[in-house]
């Protein structure tokens, strides 16, 4: 099956810092999403981004489908950004999650 790797696995930032999270996948996909999982376990959609670049406030994402990777940028981080960030890819209807990046933003 498709392999989805995320890096770094853990990240600690000072409030206000910027960061880049990476998602590599081993095969062609039709869909790629970034999620933020809050402390209560809810998965929140950040981006639906099978290709190209999107921005939403302090967050932006870029997917280069031909090179099989996606990047999530967080600028001016806030303590509320803490949590686990997952990418999920779909070759067809099935979604497969990456290993996740655990982000801690300290005041």
């Amino acid at each position, binding site marked *: 099956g498709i392999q989805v790797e995320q890096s770094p696995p853990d990240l600690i930032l000072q409030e206000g810092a910027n960061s880049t999270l990476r998602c590599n996948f081993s095969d062609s996909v*039709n869909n790629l999403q970034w999620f933020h999982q809050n402390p209560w*376990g809810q998965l929140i959609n950040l981006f639906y981004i099978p290709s190209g670049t999107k921005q939403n406030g302090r967050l932006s994402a870029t997917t280069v489908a031909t090179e099989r990777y996606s990047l999530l940028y967080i600028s001016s981080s806030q303590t509320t950004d803490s949590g686990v960030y997952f990418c999920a890819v*779909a070759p067809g209807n099935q979604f497969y999650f990456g290993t996740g990046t655990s982000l801690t933003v300290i005041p």
Partner: protein
Amino acid sequence: DAMVIQNPRYQVTQFGKPVTLSCSQTLNHNVMYWYQQKSSQAPKLLFHYYDKDFNNEADTPDNFQSRRPNTSFCFLDIRSPGLGDAAMYLCATSRTPGTSGSTDTQYFGPGTRLTVL
């Protein structure tokens, strides 16, 4: 608001006692998914329904079954829960238009946290 609803939010069962988790959606999406997420791990796909077609992942244990009586509802049945089945169970939906095989944005419910005593 259109959404994905899971009940109950917390479920406690005894070792070996069958349990059913439920999921409903008001998005009218044709694809519904069940995931298992254990502590500090990524969600793992158990199975999904594309309309009425059931698709089981190869490594999903036989102990896990699912039913989708209509578009809006989907159930996860655990026939004989073991201690290793304690986890968060997440339901999700998406829309696959046409026959392209690609699917749109996936939306998740809040999850049901299962404890096995």
